[in-house]
Each structure stands twice: as C-alpha cells, then as structure tokens.
C-alpha cells in the first residue's frame, strides 16, 4: 500500500491518553488558555484508570489525625526502596490532598466519615488510613469526574479510538504526531506546540496481567524513539492478588481494599503465612513483599488447588462486605461462582503496574526531549522500586495537572503551524505502518504477541536471575526481527482491523520488553519489585543509582546514573519513620 494521504489537525497541547493523568493534564492546559486535543485508543472513559479500585492516597488526616505529608512522603520512599525521585515524592505528598478536595468540588462523591468528611481506608504500607475512596470503584469516580470536567471545558476536544504511532520533531523539539483512526485506518497528522504523554503502562507484555489490550507501552516506546530517556524500566509491579480461577479471568485484579478491610491470606494448611514474611504489617505489607510471599508459598507446595493463596474476608459481616467491596462481591459471584461473604477467594500475583517509564523533571513532567511531557504510569520516578497502593491515583492528579500546565506554558515559545516537519520521516513512518497490510500471509501478530508474553512470563518472572534475563533478551531480539516482517493475520482491510492494530502494538511491547530485560540485567541486586535469585541482597551502594535507557546508533543503551542526595529535612522525615527494613531485605 502506498503512502496514503492524511488530514492535518492543529492544536496547542496534544495529550496522548484519556485516563486520569491525560484528562487532568487536559483540564490544566485548557485552564491555562491552551487549545487542547486529547487522543485515546479506546472510547472516552474506558481507560485503565477505571480499574483502580482501592482509593486515592492523600494525607488529609480525616481518619488518623497524626497523618501528615512527611509521613506520606516517608511511606512512599520506603515503599520505593529509596530509589524514588525524592522531589517528586515530596511534591506528591504535599499536593495530593488539594487534588482530592478539588475533585470533590468538581462533583466527585467519596465515602464519608461520621463527621461528614471524606473517609480514608487503611492500605498496604501506608502508616495511617489514607485512601479516599468510593466503595471499591474509586477509579471510575475519578475518571468520570475528570471526563465531565474536560468535555465541559472550553478548548478541550477529544479524538476517540485513534492510535498515535509516531512523534514528530522540528528543530529538536516535539511538534507533532502521526496517528490512525481505528475505525477506518485513515491517517491524521497532528501539529502541536507541546505534547503530553499519558498513555499508561505496558502490562500486556506479560501473559497474566490486570491490564487491558491497550496497555502495550506505546508512550514509553514513542518517547524512546523520539530520543527521550527512560528510567527504572526493570521495575514492574506484580500485584499480589489477581484472580487465578477460572482460567478465563486469570489475572483480573482483586483490590488491595479486601486486605485493607481486614481480609487475611492463608495457605493450603490454613496458616496465616504473612507472619513469616512481615510480622508487623502482615497482609498490609508492601506489594512486592506480599507478592513474593504468595509466590514462595505456591513454590513450596502450600498453594491452593489452582496455584494461589486463599484470601479470606468471611469473618466480616456480609452487609459490610457488600457495602465496602461491592464490585469484588459481584465479580467473584459472577465470574468464579464464589460468594466471598461465605467462601475464601483464590488469588495469585498478576502484572499490574510499571514503576519505570519516561524520565521526567519533577516539577513539570518535562522529558529529556523539548516539547515532550509525561505524567502518570508512563512517567517514572515517584514510585521508585515499588508503588504503594493508592499512590497511582494521586500521582495522576498531581503530576497530570503539573504536566498540563507546563505543556501549556511551553506552547508560547513554539510556532505550531509553521514548525518544519521532516516529510521524509512522515512518509517512512506511514510506509512502516501500512507494510503489514501488504503481508497478509506474514507471521500472525496475535501469535507474536503471545510469544512475547511467554518470554516475559518465563524469563522476567517475580524472582529473576541473570542467565534467565539474558536468554529472555536474546529471544526478544529474535522476536523483534520476526515482528518487522509480520502481517495482519490474514486480512488487508483498513476497516477496524484488530490484527493490523496488534501488529503496531508489537513494536511498543518489544521496546518495553527489551528495556526491561536490559535494565534488569544491569541491576545486580534485589530491591523492591526487582528480585534476583543470583543477587538476593539489597546493595546499599545502589540506593542512589537509577538505570537509564536511551536510544543510540548502536541500539538500546543502559547506563547507571547517580541521584543527588536528599536535603536534610527530607532525609530526616525518612529516618524518623524508618524503624526497619522489611525482613526479606535483612537476610
């Protein structure tokens, strides 16, 4: 198929992704006076944010009066095993209460305390009850509120079911993007003054994941391709509790709220095994610890019939469970035929979240490429080596707003309509996009996707080792060659052709997979979500080190970079709350 024609659309700020971060960025940029265009792969309101269940972490101290931004900051740093960008963690802890209260003024309705304030529930590794929530559907509340705010705001437009496949630069700064409409394959050239990536994670490179088809790591791959640095790519979170049975629902999230509301984990001997992994925090330990504990129990032969752990909340009253965890009740009843008010759930770790992503400046979300910003899961830094539950929704709000504002301010310095884009680059990108349509008999993209998932599941599992990672990298590089020749699975149509769409997603997934494996090989220690059986201990010298991934003429490069030390007042906040490392790390 020859290079097709495209429609040109101009805007000030182009936002990729319509989850919490993208919508919050859009609202902020529009409030700052910019014309904003939000582009999303699915329909509006379906982004992964709706899957967030437990709540938004914000030190509003409505339930525990002792809570403060310092404690939230320290919890976030401890959870991230100290490799977080401390400046981001400070901004996040200070600003999230305002962001939550602001949502309420935009119409969000949270559960209340008896005094009528926003209620806050306890959650893993948060010192105090801190998560503002609405039952177990907080993400839906957040996205619907932001969605309504955005669509009723002057200057915000939304293009649904459009996929961006290339970022375009002019004189070194991002000045546009190329995209296709999923419905008919027609092309759009966006011209923009600044671009905000808010495209979420890359969980789809694993087989068992809580992520949807969309989470193929497009934002990280586009940014990498445009020359931006990626950071902490080895850090992907296994959420401890995904459904394990029936097979069709394997990986679907079981909210940490179950444990927050008192749920306990048991192995097949009835033992409350978290006692042996984190005696103090038990089930509400950080996610990396709980996930590895379940994994260890299963490997030791103490797993459930379908290879997980029992999560039991039956000691709570049925009415309490149904009011606090309504969608979990419904989900298990409908999909697994389990009544969680009377029977335990079976759960096992599932790939959930990418802590790593595009490197951003703490205050603005600016990436290392001018004109390009990132916020939310696609960005990195806040969560370090392990994200605490509830910190992602607050992340979206705090840094979505900041990135939107910074992008709007950057537009003033750029000439949107007159930016000189490279026509040769545009033609080449379109030719690459269309190529699989001319190879109907080429390798099936679904098959390649499954192979990527098999490799990552086997070679970069919950506990990794050097030789396994190396073998995984070699396999991913082979798959990269196959993907460059892949077809659409048989059909050459441009009309809503998921086979063709998947052939594009493969490219993003492969960049993410390669970056993960290369970074994981470099980090020769165990820290947070990155556990290695050949380096089981945490290396204190690596506390100040982040691994950066960058494109070079020789291919993908990984380099270690030292972070500046925390200022004293922050170091003291951490020290103050640091009673001890988790037992796994003391070993």
């Amino acid at each position: 198929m020859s290079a097709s024609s495209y429609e040109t659309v101009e805007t000030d700020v182009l936002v990729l992704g319509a989850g919490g971060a993208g919508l919050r960025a859009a609202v902020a940029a529009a409030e700052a006076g910019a014309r904003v265009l939000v582009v999303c792969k699915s329909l509006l309101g379906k982004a992964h944010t709706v899957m967030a269940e437990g709540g938004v972490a914000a030190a509003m101290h409505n339930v525990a009066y002792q809570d403060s931004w310092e404690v939230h900051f320290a919890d976030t740093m401890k959870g991230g095993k100290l490799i977080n960008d401390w400046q981001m963690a400070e901004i996040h802890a200070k600003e999230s209460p305002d962001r939550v209260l602001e949502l309420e003024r935009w119409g969000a309705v949270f559960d209340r305390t008896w005094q009528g304030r926003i209620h806050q529930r306890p959650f893993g590794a948060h010192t105090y009850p801190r998560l503002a929530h609405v039952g177990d559907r907080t993400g839906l509340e957040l996205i619907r509120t932001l969605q309504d705010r955005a669509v009723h705001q002057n200057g915000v437009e939304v293009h649904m079911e459009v996929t961006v496949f290339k970022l375009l630069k002019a004189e070194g700064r991002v000045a546009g993007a190329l995209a296709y409409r999923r419905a008919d394959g027609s092309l759009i050239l966006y011209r923009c003054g600044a671009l905000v990536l808010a495209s979420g994670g890359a969980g789809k490179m694993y087989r068992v994941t809580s992520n949807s088809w969309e989470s193929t790591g497009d934002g990280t791959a586009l940014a990498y391709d445009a020359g931006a640095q990626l950071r902490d790519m080895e850090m992907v979170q296994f959420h401890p509790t995904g459904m394990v049975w029936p097979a069709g629902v394997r990986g679907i999230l079981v909210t940490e709220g179950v444990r927050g509301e008192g749920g306990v984990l048991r192995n097949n001997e009835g033992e409350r095994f978290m006692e042996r992994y984190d005696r103090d925090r038990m089930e509400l330990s950080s996610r990396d610890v709980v996930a590895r504990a379940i994994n260890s129990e299963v490997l030791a032969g103490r797993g459930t019939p379908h290879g997980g752990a029992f999560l039991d909340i039956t000691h709570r009253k049925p009415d309490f469970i149904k009011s606090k965890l309504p969608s979990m009740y419904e989900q298990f009843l409908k999909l697994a035929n389990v009544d969680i008010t009377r029977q335990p759930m079976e759960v096992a770790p599932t790939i959930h979240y990418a802590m790593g992503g595009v490197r951003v400046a703490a205050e603005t979300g600016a990436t290392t490429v001018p004109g390009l910003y990132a916020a939310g899961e696609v960005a990195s830094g806040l969560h370090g080596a392990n994200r605490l539950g509830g910190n992602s929704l607050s992340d979206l709000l705090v840094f979505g707003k900041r990135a939107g504002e910074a992008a709007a301010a950057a537009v003033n310095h750029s000439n949107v309509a007159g930016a000189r884009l490279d026509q040769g680059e545009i033609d080449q990108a379109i030719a690459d996009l269309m190529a699989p349509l001319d190879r109907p008999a080429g390798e099936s993209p679904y098959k390649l996707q499954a192979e990527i998932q098999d490799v990552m599941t086997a070679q970069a599992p919950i506990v990794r080792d050097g030789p396994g990672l190396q073998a995984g990298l070699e396999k991913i590089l082979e798959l990269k060659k196959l993907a460059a020749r892949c077809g659409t699975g048989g059909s050459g149509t441009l009309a809503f052709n998921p086979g063709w769409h998947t052939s594009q997603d493969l490219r993003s997934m492969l960049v993410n997979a390669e970056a993960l494996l290369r970074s994981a090989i470099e980090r020769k220690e165990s820290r947070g979500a990155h556990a290695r059986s050949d380096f089981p201990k945490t290396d204190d010298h690596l506390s100040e080190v982040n691994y950066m991934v960058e494109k070079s003429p020789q291919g993908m490069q990984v380099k270690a970079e030292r972070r500046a030390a925390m200022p004293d007042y922050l170091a003291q906040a951490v020290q103050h709350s640091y009673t001890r490392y988790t037992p796994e790390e003391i070993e």
Partner: protein
Amino acid sequence: MMEISYLDLKIWRGDAGGGELVSYRVPVREGMVVLDAVLWVQANMAADLAVRWNCKAAKCGSCSAEIDGFPRLMCKTPIAEYGGEVSVAPMKAFAVIKDLVTDVSWNYQVNKEIPPFTPSEKDLTSSEPWRMQQQDVERVMEFRKCIECFLCQDVCHVLRAHDLKGAFQGPRFMVRIASLEMHPKDVLDRRPLLKGKAGIGYCNVTKCCTEVCPEHIHITDNAIIPLKERMDDSYFDPVRSLLRRLGMGAGKPSA
C-alpha cells in the same frame, strides 16, 4: 460442569452495508465467558474481527453486545449459561461500524448537552472542605456506578424501535441527570432540560433498562420516576397550573 468441549459461536460479521451470523467452533475452557470465546476466534480464526473490550472485569462497559438477542456485557456472561451454541450480535440501537463495533458517539454528544455539576457560589469559594453525610450521598452513588456500557440505551424502545434520538436522551442520561440533580451540593435546576431536550416524557416506565443494567442501578425506580415527579410538581400540578393561569405565578418553573 457442562459436558460439551466445543462451542458453536455465531458472531455477526459485517458492516453498515449488511452482514450475517458466521459460525465458529471454539474449544471450551472451564469458566469461559463469551468475550473469551470471541477473543479466541479473533486470535485463531478471524484476525480482523472487530470487537471492543478493555477491563474484562465488568468495570469499563466496553464489550456490550446482544447475546442470544439479549443486551449484555460479553465479559460477564459465562458460556455455561447457554447450551452448545450461542449467538453474538452488535447493539441494535446504534449504527454498525464493523462486526460487533457500533457507533456510540451520539451518547458522548448528549453528555455534552447536560449542564455539568454546579455548586453554589458560597460552596465553591469556601476554603473549608465540604461536609456531607454518608446517607445524603448514597443516593447519587447508585447513579455514579454507571459504567456507560449503553445497554440501557440499546434496550430502550424509544431509541431502539422508534429511533427518537433527537427527542429523548435515553435512560443513561436520565441517570446522569439524576446524579447531578440529587447531589447534595448541586444547585442548578435541570427541570427545563428534562422537559425539553432530555425528553423525559417519552419514557413510559417499562423498566427494560433496569433489567439489563449490569451495575444493577434501579434506573426507572430511583432515577426516572423521581425526576418525573419533580417535573409533575412544577409543570403539571393542577393547583399550580390554575394559579399560573390566574397570573399568580407561584411555583413557576424557570423555563
């Protein structure tokens, strides 16, 4: 468990120009839902089969379809509920784009026409965090559970059989309006909208929408009927109507 090992899955294939049910033989796994079967077909037999889905856990409302003629979410429908065969077709109330994907953009336009949440100036400018009691917010929480699957719009005969999309905004948006009208901090009066563009009078409370709602929102009883009652109080109360005619204007609605 079911004894069958294969499912005869009939999927509607086609586009705006027409289409038909096509049979696929799908190996059955324990606990399989209709969406699993459809995605298996996509990965193994028909790579270009168009279908929307996201969360696979009944939280996003993307995979709406008519399963054996009944509007349901594919991700929440176990195939064990059916015998050895089941049909899946796109929602009928919306124009087909391709296969199971329909054009639902009208719904997003309607949402834009509904004035958003509007607190009082005093509340908006207050520096104190708002206080609201749980029992006062629970009423709107039911409406805010809506995942916008649009199954209620699909089954509503005003939209489905009579295609009165310009006259009636449909059950989804009655729920939306109810969530705003009954919000303790909202002060805007949307009765003129309900009477006019939203067209609440078209609803004759057959409750089909309530029946298909995957979130079990009591759309008719808790949203539409109370909204209709508000309308009746202000527009159709015989005493007030008489007063209005006498030029006394009491209780006159703002439009």
